């Protein structure tokens, strides 16, 4: 049976070159980066070389990159770390209403600790208005956090404008770039970013490693205390194999980004154009301001989990924002935030492309999908 992976927003297969780069750091070059001897020195050098590669991709300085274990950890550290280090200035934090759950839940937790959270709504394309953020900034505001590109609908936010506003107002600006780094250019200087999260396994690196960029001078408290690794911001023995693999993956992304993104945009637009030909379907998110590899649709009269499983049985792996795909009864809050009705959110399908995706794969999907839609609609009570 065919096996076509179209869920790159969920995770990516590791690049073989990155896998090869990290391999020696398990048992051959196994040293602890904190040790003084040769083993340690070798590890330390590899760690700092990796840091350099990662810093280079976003235009950061070497000591502004903190390696963590996941984007969730980075986002937790950004929100909680800034909150606790700056609570004397104020206790107000602004986020968008379409953040990843790790930002949402961190904010919720901070609310319980006495912080005030403002959630900025989005328009029907999922775009945050920088003006809305400007209006909400007050003297007590310490942090604005807006996701660079939505993990679900792929909408890219005007973070440069948001960054500028925050800089002018003297408020820290954090962006979660887990879905965007390596796909679209990011420069922390020109975009006025103070903190930035990115994840290795979304860019063909290994799982279990991510980064938080923290601009020099930003006041932030660690969550993990201990041996003082990562500038004292993230104690824990460095996960060197993963970090080396991450850095190699970053290097490859940087080199191939331009051609690969152009290729993906072409494929994405071909996919969108053809899926919109099916009756009773609409695109979620923005037509142009979206990630090169993301497409998200809602199909009327159909529930997303059924759709995903039917496609899986045909060898195609995709995802949905339906409630049935989660432990909760509610469908994706991101789809509700862009104004979808519940039944439309239940009928959503996210297709995310990547390096292994070919036009042949898309054509196969386009051949299979209309049949499945027809089949599921034949069972649905709402088809008439």
């Amino acid at each position, binding site marked *: 049976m065919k096996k076509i992976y179209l869920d790159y927003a969920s995770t990516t297969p590791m690049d073989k070159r990155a896998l090869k780069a990290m391999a020696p750091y398990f048992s051959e070059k196994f040293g602890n980066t904190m040790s003084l001897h040769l083993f340690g020195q070798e590890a330390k050098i590899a760690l700092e070389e990796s840091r350099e590669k990662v810093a280079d991709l976003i235009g950061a300085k070497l000591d502004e990159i903190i390696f963590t274990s996941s984007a969730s950890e980075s986002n937790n550290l950004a929100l909680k770390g800034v909150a606790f280090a700056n609570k004397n200035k104020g206790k107000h934090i602004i986020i968008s209403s379409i953040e990843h759950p790790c930002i949402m839940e961190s904010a919720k937790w901070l609310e319980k600790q006495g912080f005030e959270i403002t959630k900025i709504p989005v328009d029907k394309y999922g775009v945050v208005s920088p003006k809305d953020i400007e209006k909400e900034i007050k003297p007590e505001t310490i942090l604005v956090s807006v996701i660079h590109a939505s993990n679900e609908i792929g909408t890219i936010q005007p973070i440069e404008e948001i960054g500028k506003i925050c800089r002018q107002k003297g408020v820290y600006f954090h962006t979660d770039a887990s879905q965007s780094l390596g796909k679209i250019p990011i420069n922390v200087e020109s975009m006025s970013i103070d903190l930035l999260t990115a994840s290795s396994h979304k860019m063909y690196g290994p799982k279990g490693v991510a980064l938080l960029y923290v601009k020099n001078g930003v006041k932030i408290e660690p969550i993990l205390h201990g041996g003082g690794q990562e500038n004292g911001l993230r104690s824990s023995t460095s996960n060197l194999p993963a970090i080396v693999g991450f850095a190699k993956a970053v290097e490859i992304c940087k080199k191939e980004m331009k051609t690969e993104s152009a290729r993906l945009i072409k494929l994405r637009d071909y996919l969108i154009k053809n899926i919109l030909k099916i009756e009773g379907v609409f695109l979620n998110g923005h037509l142009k301001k979206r990630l090169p590899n993301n497409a998200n649709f809602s199909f009327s009269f159909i529930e997303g989990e059924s759709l995903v499983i039917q496609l899986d049985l045909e060898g195609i792996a995709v995802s949905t924002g*339906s409630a*049935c795909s989660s432990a909760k*009864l509610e469908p994706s809050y991101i789809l509700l935030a862009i104004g979808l009705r519940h039944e439309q959110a239940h009928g959503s399908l996210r297709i995310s492309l990547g390096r292994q995706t070919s036009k042949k794969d898309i054509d196969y999907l386009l051949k299979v999908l209309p049949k499945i839609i027809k089949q599921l609609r*034949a*069972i649905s*009570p709402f088809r008439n």
Partner: protein
Amino acid sequence: MSALASKHLIKIMENNTCGLYTKKVINTFKNPHNYGKIKNADGIGKVGNIICGDVMWLYIKVGKNKKREEIIKDIKFETFGCVAAISTSSVITDLAKGKTLKKAMNIEKDEIVKKLGGLPKIKYHCSVLAVDALVEAIYDYFYKAKKQIPDSLRKKHEAIQKSKEIIDKKYEKWSK
């Protein structure tokens, strides 16, 4: 892959919150029985809530067996929902077809779950939905035919209505 058969995996599935189904569930979902409408149905049961993502409609046609007892002569379903909802819909139609009304209204959710070789815990409510839809269809038949409604059926119907009200109220702001 979605279809998992071994006992070990079924155990994982039962404790799992979502996404994993038995081969029986997947096969039923792939080829559901008795879907569609019945024109001039004798009874229709409509349960579920679009906001939660599961809506099930059951149509029944009532006839008589040799002993002159009323039976479910024909039954069809229409379902908007997940894999589990569609599978349980199919199974309830198979279980109910040919049964006397008395027996049909007493089909239990466990029978459905068993027929499917198990369901993830979080999806048990889909089997409840199927049982409720059948009860509602049979109630609707009694009501429309102006027949005396058996006490046990009335009680079941009232319980279903009550929980429906609670859910409708919970999601009031969304349904407009």
